[in-house]
């Protein structure tokens, strides 16, 4: 499914997946800094993560401060917190 066809739940799940790939690859690359395949994999998922976070921030409100884009109101503090349950 393309990112722009995802609902909020699906987009968050997508962010969880690509972000986990970035975390896992970060740790792997710390000990294998010249692994070309891993570098390619990292760049791919880092790119997907960045655009997904931006899309989520624009559509549903920010998950990170870098994708908060405040205009008239500070929505950051009104976003659901991840331990509330429901859509997190």
């Amino acid at each position, binding site marked *: 499914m393309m990112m722009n066809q995802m609902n909020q739940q699906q987009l968050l799940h997508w962010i969880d997946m690509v972000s986990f790939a970035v975390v896992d690859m970060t740790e792997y690359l710390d000990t294998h800094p010249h692994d070309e395949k891993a570098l390619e994999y990292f760049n791919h998922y880092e790119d997907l993560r960045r655009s997904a976070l931006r899309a989520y921030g624009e559509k549903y409100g920010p998950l*990170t401060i870098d994708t908060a884009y405040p205009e008239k109101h500070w929505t950051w*503090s*009104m976003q*659901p*917190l*991840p331990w509330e349950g429901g859509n997190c």
Partner: protein
Amino acid sequence: MWNYERRLQYPINITRPNAKIAQVIMSQYGGPDGEISASMRYLSQRYSMPYRKVAGLLTDIGTEELAHMEMIATIVRQLTKGLSAEELEAAGFAPYYIDHTAGIWPQAAGGIPFNACEFQVKGDAITDLVEDMAAEQKARTTYDNILRLVKDPEVCDPIRFLRMREIVHFQRFGEGLRLVQEELDSRNFYACNPEFDPGCGK
């Protein structure tokens, strides 16, 4: 979920090691009013805080405190790096050196190890926020005490920055307390615990 930034919140570059002052500044790492205490206090209190804005404030300040922990550890590291065992001993650092060499371990200036009893999570919104305000002031007092002992401007400069943040956070928690009180009965803010009995006090 967190992400790490490979930088300090405020720059630290100490060129004159001094284990004597490292020994006292270390208290702001693992001491009773140190930055670990601060961070763990706010990041633990937030889960049951019933007002989202205040839970968000605890998250954001608790996160900044993690960066302060890193700043204090950096100061202690730069103050002790490269000193010989004899130099450490001459500076009164031998008891710490015996157990931790020149590593960074959370303890108070007097050697008391970090302990979760340094902070409280009472699970009561007003109680916890009043503790948070007191904690910021206690940390400010500690930074004032450090500044009376330390003369090296390379050390004083980041310590002054940290001291200022205590004052700002005291203000923010005061505002958080006001947000909570606005949800309660103004005739008696302490009549109940809205963190355990949702909707009480209105």
